[in-house]
């Protein structure tokens, strides 16, 4: 994964006039591998956006601006990481936004009833895992389209949130407010606890995908389910497992959102599933599955967050331009992915 941090060095971008022959062997190490190209393109885009922000707006170069993007999007990042697992197997999970909302609702309701945070926190995370496992089981065992099964899950979660309460419930628990207000300071900058949690989730997810049997099965399953089955991989366990992971990430994302909002509400996280899917796609993961990286998803979330920051700094653009920009970006990325894909074939 180290190449991710290098600037993109596609052959076309190399300075002209250098005779390629003697350099070729050295350059071949710098030329990114095929599967890294989409991620590197996202990184390049991110750097260009960040650079133009610094060039155009006063105060944009403050590192805290970048850290704020993380602070404002930590929950989306966690949810998008779960979505990455599902999409890598070629599935999709539409229920994440609703599951996030339901989690904030359960947290707020239980805390209001006086349950100790030490019970509430593990309980909602466990619920998330159970919910995801249930959807995964329905999808795998009963051969139901992921799109439809998770759509039903979405209705179920939003419905359950409204059953708990139709109004927003404030969170006043001291542990929750303490964590929410906690600033982790370093060298004059600060991040929230959520950012640290999200970073841990990203690292664990990247490790699991790259170095564990489960992670490799996820890629194999997304590459070709029949082959994975014939190879003797645990197709069922992996398929149900990714939805369990996505359920867990949604619940954790919900907990982080409840830190951020300090309230539970059935209308929290409306349309978050789309943001998560968009982040995964912009991050270079192919929706048919089998190819993509967690770090790409991180970049995808950063790009989405940066668009909003840029629009805020610009000041005179209405909020709907965010959607139009995200749409345009999606388009650009998909065309790029097609172009890259065609070059190999």
């Amino acid at each position, binding site marked *: 994964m180290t190449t991710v941090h290098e600037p993109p060095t596609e052959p076309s971008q190399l300075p002209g006039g250098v005779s390629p022959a003697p350099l070729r062997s050295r350059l071949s190490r710098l030329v990114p591998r095929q599967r890294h190209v989409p991620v590197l393109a996202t990184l390049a885009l991110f750097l260009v956006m960040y650079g133009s922000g610094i060039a155009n707006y006063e105060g944009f170069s403050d590192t805290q601006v970048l850290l704020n993007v993380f602070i404002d999007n930590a929950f989306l990042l966690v949810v998008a990481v779960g979505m990455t697992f599902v999409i890598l197997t070629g599935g*999709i999970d*539409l229920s994440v936004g609703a599951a996030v909302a339901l989690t904030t609702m359960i947290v707020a309701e239980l805390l209001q009833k006086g349950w100790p945070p030490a019970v509430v926190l593990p309980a909602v995370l466990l619920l998330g895992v159970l919910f995801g496992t249930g959807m995964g089981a*329905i999808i*795998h*065992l*009963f*051969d*139901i*389209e992921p*799109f*439809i*099964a998770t*759509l*039903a*899950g*979405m*209705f*179920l979660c*939003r*419905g*359950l949130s*409204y*059953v708990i309460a*139709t109004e927003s419930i404030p969170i006043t628990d001291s542990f929750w407010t303490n964590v929410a207000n906690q600033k982790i300071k370093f060298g004059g900058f600060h991040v929230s606890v959520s950012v640290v949690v999200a970073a841990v989730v990203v690292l664990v997810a990247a490790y699991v995908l790259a170095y564990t049997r489960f992670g490799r099965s996820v890629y194999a399953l997304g590459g070709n*389910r*029949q082959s994975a*089955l014939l190879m003797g991989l645990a*197709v*069922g366990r992996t398929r149900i497992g990714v939805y369990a992971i996505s359920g867990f990430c949604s619940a954790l994302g919900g907990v982080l959102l409840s830190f951020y909002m300090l309230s539970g509400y*059935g209308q929290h996280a409306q349309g978050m599933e*789309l943001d998560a*899917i*968009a982040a995964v*796609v912009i991050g270079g993961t192919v*929706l*048919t599955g089998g190819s993509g990286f967690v770090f790409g998803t991180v970049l995808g979330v950063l790009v989405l967050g940066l668009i909003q920051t840029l629009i805020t700094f610009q000041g005179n653009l*209405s*909020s*709907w*331009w*965010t*959607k*139009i920009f*995200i*749409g*345009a970006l*999606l*388009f650009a990325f*998909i*065309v790029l992915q*097609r172009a890259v894909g065609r070059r190999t074939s």
Partner: protein
Amino acid sequence: MTARLAAARQHPLFWPAVVLVALLAVNTVYSHGFLSIELRDGHLYGSPVDILRASAPLALVAVGMTLVIATGGIDLSVGSVVAITGALACLRISKLDDQNSVGGVLVAVAVALVLSVILGGWNGLLVARFGIQPIIGTLILMVAGRGIAQLITDGQVLTINSDPYQKIGAGYWLGLPLSVLIAAAVIGATIAVLRRSALGMLLESVGGNAEASRLAGIKARWLKFAVYAFSGLCAGIAGLMISANVRSADGNQAGLLIELDAILAVVIGGTALIGGRFAVLGTVLGAVIIKTLDITVYTVGIPPEVKLLFKALVVIVLCLAQSAAFRAWISRRRPRPARVAELDKDDEKAGALA
């Protein structure tokens, strides 16, 4: 179980019909005059008419979606197209000197519908020409389209006062709601064209195997392009109905989540998401079921906040009832391994039952 019942159970519309009848029965139990229709001021009134009126836009969107899904695609952008066409039509009408001029309204409607075909065509271009995955190709317009709709209405709810325009959504003709008649006409024409000509079979062939269809001399790309454009048009008509009904355009809320309801209607109607076969009438039945479900919630007195929960349960039950693997499991056999199920699916596709 008699042979006839067993045969009826094989019919693709059996389970959806059972659910619809059950829902209507529940409604009748809770509200005795539920099924009665009366003639008042030359207009038909009654809950069944209400259900049909509420179903008209959804049924239109869902029929467009059915054809897209028949070719193995999906169209997530319909909600945004609904919002954009409604917004554009209302914007043009609001700029008229006389909002009640029929000519001006017709021009606005025509412009909005042309735009909806163009938007659908954009999806078709991405999917058919550039080979982009349908779910992603249409996601672009779904996300950007909401922004465009808000751009048109300038983020406001655009209210107009035009009687001719309102007729599209709330008017009556020959005692029947105009929106139902429009939807019936479009859907009837669609079924006639698809099933009276080879077009329906060609669509199923493209959905079954686009490459094989192409090699067999079918213009698979053109057909794919056409179904997305048609889906855009259907969403456009629905968008006009929805905005006309409330005499306003809301770029943010109009048609929100209608793509999910439409896909649901298609699946309930017995069209498989993998493509290769489709049932337009089943889809219409599905749309009516979804809207009946909404009305049932009010009739039975289920609190509105439980509505989604109720919907989720019905979706789960219906999908499980239609799942061969689940029925096998219920009859105490082990679910078949995925491999066998896949092979069966291919057989079904080849069979292409209508």
